[in-house]
């Protein structure tokens, strides 16, 4: 009878009933945990008396929503179904002994005996002066609590629900922002979000495997199979073509908005909830505090379990706590894991651009300027996403410019010499900048213009310019007892290789297969020995990728002549060796 109560807070379970056909945009009914307010538990299923007069004081369960201790033996019960009546009868007859035979029949892979409350709370209700039983907080205890509803966190939730071995795990996800807009996302064709990611073929095939990719709006995904990268100082360049890819003809990467992925993941989760595999989502809910569980219970010892107090007043208890909560991860702080690295002293400026024509959409462009790389990545319908890594001062200047002046500067940054570009940075007037650019651009040799430079930028989407600091971080460990970190909580990197989101997807893929194996083998999924396997597999891979990106960044962040000469020779050599380029592409695409 409590079976429903366990998932009653699941907005997805509830939402599933009102689930409209896919893509209609509305998956959340009014029962979404809006404002993070979970529906009140209907009634006290488990009546446990707190008797403070005898023995040491019984600690209060810090859970405002939890049923308050009742004074009378015969508590009022919600009549969810007839079994409750039977239960009352038992209670009245003061059955005290716990009959283990009632408890044998259990669910398969969930770590919680969902169906067993009945018997347990009979015992709990009739004893006096004891600490509460686990059944008291059972609704708030989860196998996996994921902090962070970004792409990594949602992907982990989806992938746990996708595997037959882990689908019965009781999973909760906590997100500080509202997920409603992502779930209801109704994209308009001429607006693009400025938060865009490059999805490698490896990440895409993982999302396909778990059944999420089919929920992605395909018309908002742009693939590319060509990449031009060149040195802004020397002009030395490297070009990757589709024949450098393995298998030949596949794409190098898939560009799409993060919200497209989030929307797809939420659609998948709501579809999964409809088949009974729900994830409890607390969105619009901040994590207030993470501590070891201090609630003293009579029958179990949860002291090793992290408990997460949320801004909605509830507390959840986690067998395994996942930090998918970004660079300043509260979960990481709780686990006491050290994160090391440095700031690049650069900001990444992003913007959504419209190109002068809808053409050549299979090519990605990146030019290394001494202030940082500028990259133009194709998006559908003649649009493009700009990631311009540069000094914080220049980033602020670029954001403050008029749209026309900004577009001219982007065009200039892909074409002009450093001297000319530096001069343009000092101009503020749009017409002035435009005239200067046209004059200087006219002086450039016209040969092979189309193959060497991206199309010109025509417009920048209003309000799409934003910037964020760039840094390199890597955690000493990704795991602690009952804690694991994924994605940016474990590592962050420079966007120059478009790997950030993909490293996180790699983490999730590995972690979910490790957890799958652990469940099959009967291990406790919060066991450090289990989790260490995840760390051992992912750390070296991420370490190499972060290292390579870091060195590339440092190598190209200078205009010192000897270094420029060396790196240009190096790049020219690599550019002439197809097999090396194939090898690089294998690493970059993850296949």
């Amino acid at each position, binding site marked *: 009878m409590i079976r429903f109560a366990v998932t009653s807070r699941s907005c997805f379970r509830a939402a599933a009933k009102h689930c409209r056909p896919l893509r209609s945009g509305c998956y959340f009914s009014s029962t979404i945990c809006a404002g993070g307010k979970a529906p009140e538990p209907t009634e006290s299923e488990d009546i446990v008396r707190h008797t403070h007069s005898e023995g040491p004081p019984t600690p209060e369960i810090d859970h405002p929503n939890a049923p308050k201790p009742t004074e009378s033996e015969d508590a009022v019960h919600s009549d969810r179904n007839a079994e409750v009546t039977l239960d009352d009868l038992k209670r009245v007859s003061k059955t005290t002994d716990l009959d*283990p035979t009632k*408890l*044998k029949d*259990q669910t*398969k*892979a*969930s*770590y*919680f*005996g969902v169906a*067993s409350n009945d018997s*347990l709370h009979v015992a709990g209700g009739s004893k006096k002066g004891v600490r509460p039983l*686990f059944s008291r907080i*059972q609704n708030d*205890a989860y196998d996996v609590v994921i902090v962070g509803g970004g792409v990594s966190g949602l992907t982990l939730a989806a992938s746990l629900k996708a595997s037959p071995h882990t689908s019965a795990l009781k999973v909760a996800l906590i997100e500080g922002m509202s997920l409603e807009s992502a779930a209801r996302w109704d994209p308009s064709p001429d607006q693009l979000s400025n938060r865009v990611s490059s999805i490698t073929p490896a990440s895409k095939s993982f999302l396909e495997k778990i059944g999420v990719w089919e929920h992605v709006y395909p018309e908002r995904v742009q693939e590319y199979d060509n990449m031009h990268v060149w040195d802004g100082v020397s002009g030395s360049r490297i070009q990757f073509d589709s024949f450098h890819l393995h298998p030949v003809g596949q794409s190098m990467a898939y560009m799409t908005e993060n919200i497209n992925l989030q929307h797809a993941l939420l659609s998948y989760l709501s579809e999964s909830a409809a088949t009974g595999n729900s994830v409890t989502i607390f969105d619009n809910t901040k994590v207030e505090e993470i501590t070891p569980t201090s609630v003293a219970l009579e*029958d*179990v*010892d*949860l*002291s*090793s*379990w992290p408990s997460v107090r949320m801004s909605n007043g509830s507390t959840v208890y986690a*067998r395994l706590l996942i930090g998918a909560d970004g660079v300043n991860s509260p979960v990481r702080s709780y686990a006491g894991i050290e994160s090391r690295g440095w700031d690049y002293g650069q900001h990444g400026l992003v913007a959504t651009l419209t190109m002068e024509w809808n053409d050549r959409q299979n090519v990605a462009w990146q030019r290394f300027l001494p202030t940082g790389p500028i990259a133009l990545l194709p998006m559908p319908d003649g649009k493009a996403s700009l990631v311009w890594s540069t000094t914080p001062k220049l980033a602020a200047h670029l954001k403050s410019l008029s749209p026309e002046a900004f577009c001219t500067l982007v065009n200039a940054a892909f074409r002009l010499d450093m001297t000319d570009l530096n001069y343009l940075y000092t101009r503020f007037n749009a017409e002035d900048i435009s005239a200067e650019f046209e004059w200087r651009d006219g002086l450039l040799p016209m040969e092979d213009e189309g193959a060497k430079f991206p199309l010109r930028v025509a417009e920048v989407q209003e309000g799409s310019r934003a910037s964020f600091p760039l840094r390199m971080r890597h955690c000493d460990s990704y795991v602690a*007892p009952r804690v694991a970190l994924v994605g940016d909580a474990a590592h962050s990197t420079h966007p120059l290789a478009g790997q950030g989101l993909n490293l996180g997807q790699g983490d999730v893929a590995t972690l979910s297969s490790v957890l799958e*194996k*652990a469940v099959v*083998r*009967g*291990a*406790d999924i919060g*066991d*450090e*020995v289990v989790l*260490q*396997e995840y760390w*051992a597999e992912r750390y070296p891979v991420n370490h190499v990728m972060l290292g390579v990106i870091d060195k590339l960044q440092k190598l190209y962040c200078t205009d010192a002549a000897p270094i420029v000469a060396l790196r240009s020779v190096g790049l020219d050599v690599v550019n002439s060796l197809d097999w090396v380029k194939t090898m690089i592409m294998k690493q970059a695409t993850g296949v």
Partner: protein
Amino acid sequence: MIRTYRVSIRALKSSSSRFNSRFCLSRNHSSSSAFSPDELAHFNALASSWWDANGPSRLLHKMNGLRTSFIFDSIDTYSIPQLSRSSELKMLDVGCGGGILTEALARNSRVKSITGLDMSEQVLEVAKKHKLQDPRLVIENKLQYKLCSLFDLPVPEVADGIDERYDVVTMFEVLEHVPDPSALLHAATNLVKPGGWIFASTVNRTAAAYLTTIFIGEEILNIVPKGTHSWSKYINENELREWFVENKSNVPGSGEHWDVVKTTGCLYVPFIGWRFCGPRDLGNYFLAARRMA
């Protein structure tokens, strides 16, 4: 060291029949004879760190996945449907220690009940306490621990077609710690119903095993607590296999018959972990024996 060597030479020479005669002392064991006092003291000392994933029992923790895979793979592959249902298993874990394997088995939905048996009270306390960290184990209530020698465990009743004997008895890393492995095996086999299983693991008495498990493991790398193993107590794979042939093959009178269906060598590779590889007669190995009648 020299003494160990001499003993070992003797042990190496002993054929499997001598292995029997040496160990088949009596059937009336007092509980103290199942486990020597110094072994007991050794494991008592390990009790507090038993569940520390980075502590002295780390290798044991890492081996656990291999054990459960071995058990369920063998049951799935070699079970005889007419003799046993492999979905509601009644299990006994002999020498359960802190419950590393016992807990993992208890979490398996195919296990109906499991009893962990150990001779060390302190270690069992740790096991019982650790069980409380998993509400599922508490709620399902399939797992029990018993401070008891295998010799003192009453043979479950068989009456009116209801066989209360065990489907599976596991003895992992046990045989090399007891003074009389043969007697222990006899006692274990009596508890298993036809169609049931014994899963055991121990170490071959080879120079390579001495080098890896004792010299490197205990002395050099210190990844195994000192004094855990004594080489002379190791049992060769063929000795164990032949023990079943000689003692449990169509036993006159009872009609009892056992097959050793599988033995597998396993190896700890630093930085990689435990793997099923290497020859079965070199170092650590697992054995699966099935009772046919």
